[in-house]
């Protein structure tokens, strides 16, 4: 007999999560598409009734996005310009319907190479807060995601929040798909840019859908540091962008196209963020 749990208290939830084969669930926008059945299989732990797990809050150290915060919550939240990329990504997640139900943390736990939330969160230096009955830990997002549909979550662990340090600058996000709405990316790019006295003082770049896990582009970031915005366009090259990526060919595009497209998206995202910075 499989159980269904919908606790209102985190401690209780963590005790349940320790049970064998328990599947955490939130918006269910990835769990249901994975089955043709009318019900979810196995013991299910629904996290959406737990108090304190939803919403975006700021304390002295930074921002906390509760695990069951939805994309619609992100769109509605009052956030600084560095989060504009995350907000833009939120508007590109599936459809309005998916944004209503789907959660930011669920997007990370599903660990799709084309997860819309990952590139902007990488540019924000996000960490993932993980809890279990025996304690809590934090991992940088890049370490949390370990492969296609794989994360560092151990049995009994659930994500409780995404933590973002105080970050400056202007964010931007661009997604390329073969149609306007409800589309899985061919490639997507997030950028966060700090411009001081007309020069790039700080730049974070991340590309999704071009590798098993979305990647920061450290070589390209290094090449942009210190340049003026006018110089930046010419300093974005396929070689530097491709350095961190390993795209595949699939039904959406071939690998070479993905690199070329990612390079162009980086160029345009840097320019877009530069206009706001």
């Amino acid at each position, binding site marked *: 007999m499989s159980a269904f749990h919908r606790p209102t208290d985190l401690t209780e939830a963590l005790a349940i999560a320790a049970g064998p084969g328990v599947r955490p669930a939130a918006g269910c926008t990835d769990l249901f598409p994975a089955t*043709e059945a*009318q019900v979810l299989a196995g013991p299910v732990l629904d996290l959406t009734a737990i108090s304190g797990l939803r919403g975006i809050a700021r304390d002295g150290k930074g921002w906390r996005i509760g695990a069951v915060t939805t994309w619609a919550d992100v769109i509605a939240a009052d956030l600084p310009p560095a989060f504009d990329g995350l907000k833009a990504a939120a508007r590109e997640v599936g459809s309005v319907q998916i944004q*209503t139900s789907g959660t930011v943390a669920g997007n990370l736990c599903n660990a799709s190479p084309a997860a819309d939330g990952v590139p902007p969160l990488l540019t924000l230096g996000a960490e993932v807060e993980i809890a279990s009955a025996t304690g809590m830990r934090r991992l940088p997002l890049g370490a949390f995601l370990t492969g296609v549909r794989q994360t560092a979550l151990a049995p009994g662990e659930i994500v409780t929040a995404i933590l973002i340090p105080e970050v400056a600058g202007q964010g931007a996000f661009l997604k390329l798909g073969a*149609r306007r709405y409800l*589309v899985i990316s*061919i490639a997507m790019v997030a950028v966060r840019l700090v411009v001081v006295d007309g020069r790039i003082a700080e730049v974070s770049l991340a590309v999704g859908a071009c590798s098993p896990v979305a990647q920061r582009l450290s070589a390209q970031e290094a090449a942009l540091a210190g340049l003026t915005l006018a110089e930046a366009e010419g300093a974005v090259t396929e070689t530097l962008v491709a350095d961190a990526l390993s795209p595949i060919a699939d*039904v959406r595009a071939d690998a070479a196209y993905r690199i070329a497209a990612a390079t162009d998206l980086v160029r345009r995202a840097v320019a877009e963020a530069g206009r706001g910075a």
Partner: protein
Amino acid sequence: MTIRQPVPLGLTVNGRDHHVATDPTRRLSDVLRRDLGLTGTKSGCDAGDCGACTVLIDGAPVCACLTPAAQAVGRRVETVEALAAAPETAALQDAFLRHGAAQCGICTPGMLMAATALIRRTPHPTRAEAEAALGGVLCRCTGYAKIIDAVCNVHPGPTPEMPQAGAAVGARLPRLDGADKVTGAERFGADHLPEGALVVRAIRSPHPAARFVFSDLDGFARRTGLMVFTAADIPGENRFGVIPPFADQPALAETEARLRGEAIALVAGPRAAIEAADLSAFPVSWEILDPVTDPAQAQGARPVLAERPDNVLTRGRVVRGDAATGIADAEHVVTGETSTAFVEHAYIEPEAGAAWMEGETLCIRACTQAPVMDRDDVAKLLALPVERVRILPSGTGGGFGSKLDVSLQPLIGLVALKTGRPAVMTYTRRESMQSTTKRHPARMTASIGCDAGGRITAMEFDGTFDTGAYASWGPTVANRVPVHASGPYFTPTYRAETIALHTNNPIGGAFRGFGVPQAAILQETLYDDLAEKAGIDRLEFRRINALRDGQPTVCGQSLGGVGIGACLDALSVEWVRAVAEAESFNATAGRMRRGVGVASCWYGCGNTALPNPSTMRVGLTPSGRVVLHQGATDIGQGSNTVIPQICADALGLPLAAFDLIGPDTALTPDGGKTSASRQTYVSGKAAMLAGQALRAQVLALTNRAPDAALLLSGAILTVRDSAGETTLDLARLPVAEGYALVAEESYDPPTAPLDADGQGAPYAVYGYGAQLAEVEVDTVLGTTRVLRIVAAHDLGRVINPLLAEGQIEGGIAQGLGLALMEEYLPGRTENLHDYLIPTTGDMPEIRSILLEVPDPEGPMGAKGLGEHALIPTAPAILNAIRHATGARIRQLPALPHRVLAAMWEAGR
């Protein structure tokens, strides 16, 4: 499989409290539909890809299929059934009706709910806001334009009045069957759930080619509590097909599966037992065969079907004059090739239906385009006389050709017949995509020549069509293409040959245009190359060659009422403007380039040189109602409205006096299949003849003149001419079969068989069209945005401009998908997130120009339109891409990486 104890859940739906006991993780869509009977919420994909199940929870739109019921507890759920009760949402429903925003209606509840969330927040949205709010709901019929129109114009408009007697044809009339589509009351295939029905599931082949043997079926049945049915249980001849001489498809495969997803067995049982069973443990073992997947290699490969050892299904041929010499002697010659992909119909309603016994009669209520063909195929498979099979079509949530072939009708029929119990079945999206027909992939080469003045002198065309594992409509495609591949242009010498080859790929069947859209892509793109060589403007080049009345077609047929010249002429002002605007834009733009393209279509309405009659019956009841027995299925295209409009004017009574019966094979004469753009023309003509015949009876009884006016008041029919008036009390006339007066008429298009060279008269009526596409191509990313399409179509006589525009807009949406994004790959795109169809945000502005060049044969001059609208779109877009960038796309769809590659090849 999970067995979870039902728990009591309290749900507040549409302001009412409900208590259900169910698995708390059950999809809310399933609970709404089955536990609460609120079937207005539709299920199209169970994956959040189509949005048909959109409901509001606490005012926000969600996919009910992705929402566990437990998460709705304590919250406010709103479904389509609630909309009529509130003025603002009732106005939205009216706006949908008034604007023609619902065609088949399967997406309508989801659209309405998403729109409700929007207009409560933003009562007067912009088009962009409406597109974004509705971007999560897919529609395959409308092309979205009229849906966005409705959402942006909710404020109460003038209530459309029913036309007066004699004024029905030509009226911009909302569809007569629309009310149920906007309230959620329309019953589609999955919405009829007879009490105590057995749920049927198919066991399907995971392999494209494999032999199989069953082992312990009895043990499986015992363990699961399910009944098992295999081909051995089929009492009749286990082969069906839409063209009887080619019938080759088993309802259940016997020993060998020939395509991925082919059904090999059925299980049936109570829903709980079906849900609990592990169907992956079904006792079958497979011997995998080497699949034939490449049509180019099919001849000489392992036979897919023993009866066609060379894998050749059929060939088509039309030859007129000496085309080889014509090409050799031409001043300018172009040669090219194009290949197209499998294209999925992607109607939002997966196949679904119910079957039950009424006495000795097997009744089947399922979505379909062809009730009488369904009846005949089911009767043959189940060894029943046709009188013992009754098809009562459900609402059909889109068809586009694929629901011409039977799918689950024989399967649920078998279970109902064998058990005596009602049986229901709904395909999953994956099953629907795997097992039903697709547009034939084509590999085509052609050469076209013209003289120095740009007049076409010759064309040669060769096309190979992948017809997949079974015949379906492969012969029709092979025969239609050579007849149409010239396009609507005078082509004095011509050779077109086609071959349809079997593979272990999906079945190539009917899809809006039967191969003609594929051929038009090659011909129309070559016309641009040829116009360039001849140094003639591309629109002018087409006008020079447009077929004219009396000029022989490539089949040697002389036609009247040829409207292609009028269509091209109607584009000329827009053409000059669009080309100038594109050139001006490109003079200053950077990476973005604009281009303009044009393409034409012609399309013969009805079967190719074969009989395809329709019969209509219309009667006057003793109480003074006009009843039309209308057996033509309306799958959204509008025959429930257009055919009564024609009949009303033929009879001379107002449409408001009409009631509609059918379709139902027990109640309606055969209206033929909804395909080949034939219902307005063929069934419409039968309805006109029936209306005229009934009118003649009235005039004969009253001895009044042919132009007499008919006035109906209750049971009193007054007939008035210039000499006076006579009244008939219908209640006092003798009653036969429920009618005081009744007429039934048939119409079959006059065609002539084609000879060995394809010469003859394949169709009695053709329709024509030409479209102009304006695109913007991002030359760095290779992405194409279609900005605007102007569509000029000759309908002969416009029966209903509102519905005609809907056909054009919907056809353009499918043509845009064919051009830019749609490619079905077995095993890889078996869902609606990997297989992409256009969303609200992908559609251009569309201007429809409806032209009337009367056809001598069509009813009141009318011609068909349904398929025509799709044909020019893809080549017009491809020609615009070429104009913008130089890229010649030879492999469809024009995905961004293919556009870039073609640009590099063109050296730009």
